[in-house]
């Protein structure tokens, strides 16, 4: 592990490669051009690019928006596996930990498919082997007929202990949701634990991760609150991710707040407020939108039992990525350029998918543009 101030050549080499890779991602102008195209033109355009060769391989099996989505998903998997291959030492460990979220999605899809007897090919099409679990292992997992067999085959996986805890209840009603939530909680705990281990750039990564946890918790708290029936406070505890700036106790107090004054006074203490205010300022082009306005906005939605506004969620994601980019420029030979690349790549794929799906559903260009993260 490289100590601060003593950066190993392999770190410098890897970080430089990631910076170069980042420059190859689609620029803003490319999105503007793609936005003017129809789906066949997008397929042709991406097919001509060296980066998206998957589109040509899949053109015989899929068409339209599905072809684009399948191709970008495979491209994401290939890029991330490539990133894992070139990341050395602690960068490799942290990259693996970061990519575990795809493993979680894949494992949960396989377990659900096995228990609910969904055709294997259908499940296979949904898998994005962008994490540590490669296609061969995922195919092996797909060959099992019971949940227990699949769990046994996952014993070497870093999140297996969680699965082992739920071995007996696997397949019971509501068990998968609990397993999935616990896997994600352990995923963030693992990321935070690694970040605290003291790698280069990890100190700067911790506030970023904490903010991501806060924003995820706040969004989920709004989701729980707007449910048809008020949920049990234990569900709040089960679904909140520990480790953020906002403690679970604060989130519980926020959930129980009954008046605007109480809610806003608690909410104004959080680190979300300035970012939310900035996101709304940028989204609405309103320079006078203050933190108090942001707290009132959240209260209104909270009071009316409404979910977060998707456009604001996207605006916050844009700000998060800008912060990550700024950090990665400030600490060029650390984990931050790696994660900045992985996050940017993830959103490049999300953007192309959003454009393809939006166009397939006939949504207007300005509506699609709201879901693009640049």
């Amino acid at each position, binding site marked *: 592990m490289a100590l601060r101030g003593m950066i190993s050549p392999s770190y410098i080499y890897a970080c430089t490669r990631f910076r170069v890779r980042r420059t190859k991602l689609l620029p803003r102008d490319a999105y503007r051009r793609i936005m003017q195209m129809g789906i066949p033109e997008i397929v042709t355009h991406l097919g001509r690019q060296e980066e998206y060769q998957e589109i040509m391989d899949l053109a015989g099996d899929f068409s339209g928006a599905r072809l684009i989505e399948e191709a970008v998903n495979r491209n994401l998997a290939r890029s991330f596996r490539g990133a894992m291959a070139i990341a050395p030492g602690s960068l490799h460990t942290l990259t693996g930990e970061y990519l575990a979220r795809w493993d979680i999605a894949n494992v*949960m899809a396989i377990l659900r498919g096995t228990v609910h007897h969904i055709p294997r090919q259908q499940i296979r099409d949904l898998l994005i082997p962008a994490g540590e679990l490669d296609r061969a292992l995922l195919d092996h997992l797909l060959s099992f007929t019971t949940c227990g067999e699949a769990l046994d085959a996952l014993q070497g996986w870093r999140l297996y202990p969680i699965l082992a805890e739920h071995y007996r209840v696997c397949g019971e009603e509501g068990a998968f*949701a609990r397993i999935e939530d616990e896997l994600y909680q352990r995923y963030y705990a693992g990321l935070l634990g690694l970040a605290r281990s003291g790698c280069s750039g990890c100190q700067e990564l911790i506030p970023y991760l904490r903010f991501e946890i806060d924003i*995820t918790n706040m969004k989920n708290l709004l989701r729980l609150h707007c449910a048809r029936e008020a949920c049990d406070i234990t569900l709040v505890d089960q679904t909140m991710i520990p480790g953020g700036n906002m403690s679970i106790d604060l989130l519980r107090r926020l959930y129980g707040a009954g008046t605007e004054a109480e809610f806003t006074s608690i909410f104004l203490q959080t680190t979300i407020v300035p970012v939310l205010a900035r996101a709304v300022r940028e989204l609405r082009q309103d320079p006078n939108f203050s933190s108090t306005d942001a707290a009132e906005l959240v209260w209104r939605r909270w009071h009316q039992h409404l979910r977060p506004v998707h456009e604001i*969620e996207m605006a916050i994601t844009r700000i998060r990525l800008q912060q990550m980019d700024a950090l990665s420029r400030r600490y060029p030979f650390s984990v931050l350029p790696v994660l900045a690349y992985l996050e940017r790549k993830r959103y490049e794929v999300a953007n192309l*998918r959003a454009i393809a799906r939006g166009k397939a559903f006939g949504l207007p260009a300005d509506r699609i543009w709201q879901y693009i993260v640049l």
Partner: protein
Amino acid sequence: MPIDDIKPTRAGLLIVRRRMALAERVHELLSMKLDGMMLELIRLTDRAAEQRRELEDLYTGAREMAAVAAMMEGATGVLLAALSVEAVPTYAVGHKNVFGVRLPDLEPVAVKKTLDERGYGVLGTSSVIDDAADAYENLIEAIIASAELEGGVRQLLDEIERTRRRVNALEFKVIPELMEKRRFIEYQRDEMERQEWTRLRRIKKIKAKRAEKR
């Protein structure tokens, strides 16, 4: 007894009169039922049309939510959330009686679900999935409500058609035939009475002549 077999006698006339009274009463009742069913049909048709408009709006909204979910989470993410559903939405079939017609009464079962009943994890999904799930749950409820109303309209139309045929049969066939039969029997009985009267007079005259000769 078929109407043609009724003899032109007093007993036959009584049978015809009884049948006539019954037919007229049935006709009146069926006409009232028909009017009632027509009013119910108009009410139900209006509601069904309104429900269908609502259904179309909900369908458009649900498709848009699915589009947004597919944009933000990808079709893969949406499908993964859909695969998590543990309780399949369905409906319970009952019946309600309107003017003696059994109209369907459909009750949604396991359609509207809370976040923890949907089967997907909160942390592995985002609010767009909830929005899409909500939109499709509302759509399924509207489909069930629409099916109930449209099924009711169809049943009511069938029953109206059947009742109208009965009313028409009574009005234009049974009652006129019974009236005709009653008139025929009355004519026949009048004729028989006249014949009897003439015969009696004739006998009386013959008897009177015989008495004069003696």
